[in-house]
């Protein structure tokens, strides 16, 4: 066992945390949820394992965001169970790195790139006072890993391009050293080149952590992810490589219908 350890790559803290942890990363069983009305999600069962790269797809209003919020523990299921790393979601939050839609943030807000990334260290420290130098070192290291060198650290967050802003938010999620990365529509408002770069980055990150993202366009994402979770009140999980032609077609059809009204995604979703 000792030699076994020595033969391995240097252990990262995230590996240390998950060692001997056989619970699925995300586990849902017979889960239903509604916001004072008809069910948004009904009888959902799924399991996402360690190291998976999963995309949640589905029409607008189909329950993608609700599913994400359940995993984050921001809302609780009416029926059924949800577990993250074998724990109720709210207790597993320190192992989750969350990347919200950057379009929802106030760009007038006076923050530098460093300010934003350091927010990710808030759960890791005492509850008041300044950040420690170790927090700053960690933040700089993550920014470097994501291809944003020292020049960027003190730039205004709003002075960045959409793709760079998305990287900063990913850095903020990574700086707490999570085991699961959750991204909500990371490619919204990005051009094709930035979108491609982002997926390449996620593929690299997937070597050390599990990734779940919400995405609008299936055709692009299925080249990168292992599984596709299709959400439209009910949930179906399919392996991306064995995604049958009919299933893809069906998904794309409903995608097409849902994005048709959305001027932000012109043309996407058509095969």
């Amino acid at each position, binding site marked *: 066992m000792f030699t076994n350890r020595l033969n391995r790559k240097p252990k990262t803290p995230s590996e240390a945390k998950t060692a001997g942890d056989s619970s699925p990363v995300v586990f849902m069983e017979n889960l239903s949820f509604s916001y004072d009305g008809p069910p948004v999600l009904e009888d959902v069962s799924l399991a996402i394992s360690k190291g998976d790269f999963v995309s949640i797809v589905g029409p607008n209003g189909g329950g993608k965001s609700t599913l994400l919020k359940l995993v*984050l523990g921001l809302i609780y299921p009416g029926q059924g169970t949800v577990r993250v790393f074998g724990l109720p979601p709210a207790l597993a939050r320190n192992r*989750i790195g969350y990347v919200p839609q950057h379009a929802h943030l106030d760009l007038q807000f*006076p*923050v530098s790139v460093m*300010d934003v990334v350091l927010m990710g260290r*808030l*759960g890791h420290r005492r509850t008041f006072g300044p950040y420690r130098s170790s927090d700053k070192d960690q933040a700089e290291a993550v920014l470097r890993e994501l291809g944003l060198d020292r020049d960027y650290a003190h730039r205004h967050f709003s002075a960045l391009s959409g793709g760079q802003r998305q990287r900063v938010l990913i850095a903020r999620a990574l700086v707490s050293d999570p085991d699961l990365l959750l991204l909500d529509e990371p490619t919204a408002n990005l051009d094709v080149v930035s979108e491609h770069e982002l997926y390449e980055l996620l593929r690299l990150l997937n070597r050390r952590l599990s990734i779940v993202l919400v995405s609008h366009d299936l055709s692009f994402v299925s080249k990168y992810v292992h599984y596709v979770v299709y959400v439209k009140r009910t949930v179906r999980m399919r392996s991306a490589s064995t995604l049958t032609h009919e299933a893809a077609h069906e998904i794309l059809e409903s995608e097409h219908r849902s994005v048709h009204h959305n001027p932000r995604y012109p043309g996407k979703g058509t095969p």
Partner: protein
Amino acid sequence: MEFLSDLQEHAFLQYALLTGLLASIACGMVGTYVVARRISYLAGAIAHCVLGGMGAVRYLQVVYQWQALKPLHGALFAALLAALIIGLVSLRAKEREDTVIGALWAVGMAVGIIFISRTPGYGQDLMSYLFGSILMVTPEDIWLIAGLDALIVGLVLLFYNQFLAVCFDEEFSRLRGLRVEFYYLLLLGITALTVVLLLTVVGIVMVIALLPLPVAVASRFSKTLWQMMALSALFSALFTTAGLALSYSPDLPAGATIIVLAGAVYLLVTIGFFFSRRLRPPQPALAKKQ
């Protein structure tokens, strides 16, 4: 010039100047949060509720001889209570927030007006509460103001990162384990204390302008929150001092002069930026857009 020579002779002018400078520190720091988090409306409601507290204390003072209480104490109590109620309303009653806060704004004021109308004497009190009475500040007031200032600065320094995170991205902060509601209420509490400081300078009605105007000017020149805070405090000190000095010789109301000055500077800076942007050559970034 008359202001400068009289400043050395008259204690009341020195107190006024000191009050303005002390209030400016809190104004710059808290005003920055108020602008960044877009809660000027809540600050306005807190300010107007203060009239209820001041009116009630003035009534008790005159009618029941409660000499130990000062209107400023009533203001403090009313401001904190209003901040708590308004904070809870804005957290819980999302869809009816503006209605409820608008109602609180007016009801707080109405309570104050009723108390003042039942208080024997002249209506002078009402005017000084509404429009400020910086020239009437006493040494005791200065101590209270300095104490509040120290409390505000201390809290802002202690929780700077938490307030920044909660104001910028509430959802993410919650996921990082911050007690978002607590920090939001604390921020409104600090805003309430700042409102009490500022109302000695410019009065209840004009607090809503003195809080954001220096920040609006400072935001043109700053990238980060703390730069904005420092610059706002500086501009605020500039406006209160210059307003006080300008109003002195022609015997203009000091609070109103400060506000007009702040508004004029904001207007000039905005116009200046507008023209400097128009004169600049077109941005190459626009041509690259697909």
